[in-house]
């Protein structure tokens, strides 16, 4: 997460008082938010941060620049539909895209464990190069560190991305209004469940692939079709759709109503979630994005999405209402409803 720095305030107010870091602090849910807002934001952003977005938009010597960074620690390194290298490029590309920027350039930091087989590294570097070419971004440089055997799990990758803000759209949760529509680009949960199955700890098999890909073509299509009507965008990675929408609800102070039957979920993902007691709304994605669009432009945005390759399964999955303020409510066709909160704890660590 990235926000704009405001320096010069007095002693930061630290609200994060937990005695040690737990896996949950990296899971993208409530604990992550407490850490970012309670420890990082007070030091880096002077206490009262702007709502934290996927990338910061800065002005440097008159030039508009979007910047973001992300680290990848996924285990296993290679999984159906992708690998850590591909994820490292697409993840950062997507953070730039949903901030409303065209991804341009990436720099890479590799942390390698001594003993890593060269062919494994070779494959990942190739995967990064391919993903960069496909996403039309340039890899401009990087850094490599090697740590002792046993001090890292094969390899970790950090990518930092620079992008150019798209003209005519302003992604800001505070611009969201009651009546706005919530759009989703396609079926959810593929990545998280694929990783879970790829670990082979479950003795379960499923015909699933990670959805890792650049979402920029779809973002661009929505921006062209609905420009000023695009209020907010987010790629629902760790913590899933539920966590992203809860962050939105909290940031804008409004309620998000989801129509359960409209949320696309593949049968294999639903089945695995039923068996494991997980909610697909909490499962990570690496190639989908959510957007909130003004009601009069929502249909145009949906049409543009569906006409973009990869966006065929896009749907309007919900809408913004005054209440439940700050919460996400899922409704069913038979009139039942439930609150869906951010992810608590971490059912599936190290998925990206």
């Amino acid at each position, binding site marked *: 997460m990235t926000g704009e720095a405001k320096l010069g305030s007095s002693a930061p107010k630290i609200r994060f008082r937990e005695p*040690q*870091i*737990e*896996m949950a602090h990296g899971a993208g849910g*409530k*604990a992550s938010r407490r850490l970012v807002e309670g420890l990082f934001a007070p030091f880096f952003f002077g206490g009262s941060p702007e709502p934290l977005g996927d990338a910061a938009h800065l002005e440097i010597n008159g030039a508009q620049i979007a910047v973001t960074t992300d680290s990848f620690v996924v285990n296993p390194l290679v999984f159906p539909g992708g690998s850590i290298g591909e994820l490292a490029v697409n993840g950062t590309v997507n953070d730039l895209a949903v901030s409303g920027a065209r991804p341009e350039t990436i720099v890479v930091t590799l942390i390698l464990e001594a003993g890593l087989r060269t062919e494994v590294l070779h494959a990942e570097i190739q995967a990064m190069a391919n993903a960069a070419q496909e996403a039309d971004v340039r890899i401009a440089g990087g850094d490599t560190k090697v740590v002792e055997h046993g001090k890292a799990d094969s390899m970790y990758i950090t990518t930092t991305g620079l992008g150019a803000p798209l003209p005519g759209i302003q992604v800001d949760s505070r611009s969201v209004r009651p*009546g706005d529509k919530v759009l989703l680009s396609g079926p959810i949960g593929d990545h998280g469940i694929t990783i879970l199955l790829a670990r082979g*700890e*479950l*003795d379960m098999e499923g015909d699933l692939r990670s959805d890792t890909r650049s979402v920029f073509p779809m973002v661009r299509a929505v921006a062209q079709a609905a420009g000023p009507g695009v209020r907010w965008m987010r790629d629902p990675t760790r913590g899933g759709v539920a966590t992203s929408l809860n962050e939105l609800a909290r940031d804008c102070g409004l*309620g998000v109503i989801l129509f359960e*039957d409209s949320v696309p979920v593949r*049968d294999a993902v*639903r*089945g695995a979630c*039923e068996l*494991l*007691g997980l909610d697909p709304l909490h499962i990570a994605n690496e190639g989908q994005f959510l957007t909130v669009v003004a009601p009069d432009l929502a249909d145009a945005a949906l049409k543009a999405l569906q006409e973009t390759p990869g966006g065929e399964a896009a749907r309007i999955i919900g*809408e913004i*209402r*005054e*209440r*439940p303020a700050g*919460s996400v*409510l899922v*409704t*069913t*066709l*038979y*009139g*039942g*409803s*439930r*609150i*869906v*909160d951010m992810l*608590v*704890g971490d*059912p599936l660590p190290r998925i990206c």
Partner: protein
Amino acid sequence: MKYVDEFRDPELINKAADEIRRLADPNRHYRLMEVCGGHTHAIYRFGLKDVLPPNIELIHGPGCPVCVLPMGRIDDALSIAENPDVIFAAFGDMMRVPGTNGSPLEHKARGMDVRIVYSPSDAIKLAKTNPQKHVMFFAIGFETTAPSTALTLQRAKSEGLHNFSVFCNHVTIIPAIRAILDSPDMRLDGFIGPGHVSTVIGCRPYEWIAQNEHKPIVVCGFEPLDLLQSIVMLLTQLQKGEARVENQYKRVVPWEGNRAALKAMAETFQLRPYFEWRGLGFISQSALRIHEQYAEWDAEQRFHVPGIRVTDPKAAQCGEVLKGVLKPAQCKLFGRECTPENPVGALMVSSEGSCAAYFNYEHRKNALVTSLNAPA
């Protein structure tokens, strides 16, 4: 998805809800207990309270194994796992259950070797891949999960696996229902009977509830339509003044139960003379320990167990909530000191715990009923 979608069909659900409204006597208040935590979870997850008439009150029962386990048992098991040669293996929903000095997950962050497994056979696999370590599986659950622990014990014995043991917390459902019925502050009209437990024990063990206590009980599945259909069946019996055991979950539950599973359990477990339940106190013959013939795989015999007894934090009213006397939100700590993130009691941890279900799906909702009815 087959066997799921047809039980979530809005049209059928609306029909069942209509039938419930037709059967329910508006001058009568119905108190029905869903025994099983899985039902509690489903009721909140599918928002079923929204489709039931207000005079049908669902009371959450004691059928959440994580919730009824006293904290001392967790402390005992964790004290064994303080030994650096021991790997503590448990299901995921145990990981965040608080012990006196923190949950298994917090112990893991402090360096204890704690692993999440999805079945006891995963724990066996763990023992085989870590021959220099001892793997202790923290077994928990009603008759639903006891057979898989039983088969695992049999396998450990037949394969001569010596670096594996089970810390057994299995409990049985019938004594708990009896304790609830014996409780003077509990007036119930009928039971939504356990689904998964009944796949193992069958329906016969409930007959005394109908015959001696004159309460109807319907063994029920876990989809929205299952629950509504079971309520229809209960109301039909109540309207006729009947009290019978019925099986709504026939697609899974045989009337006689699962003989092979019961046989494996009889071979590997013995009844404990008594066992402590959170909220319900000591209940005689309500839990299983590992059979003498499997003593080598019984963590309680293999290791020194301190036998820690801890009372729940005074302000927490887990016991009253477990017995169905209080609703989750009526507990003084609910939503303030006790949340899913910082649980004080186990009912706030397990997905089957009524407090967690209520907090996750229902809490904050009451204020919004109007917003649902408002135009889009």
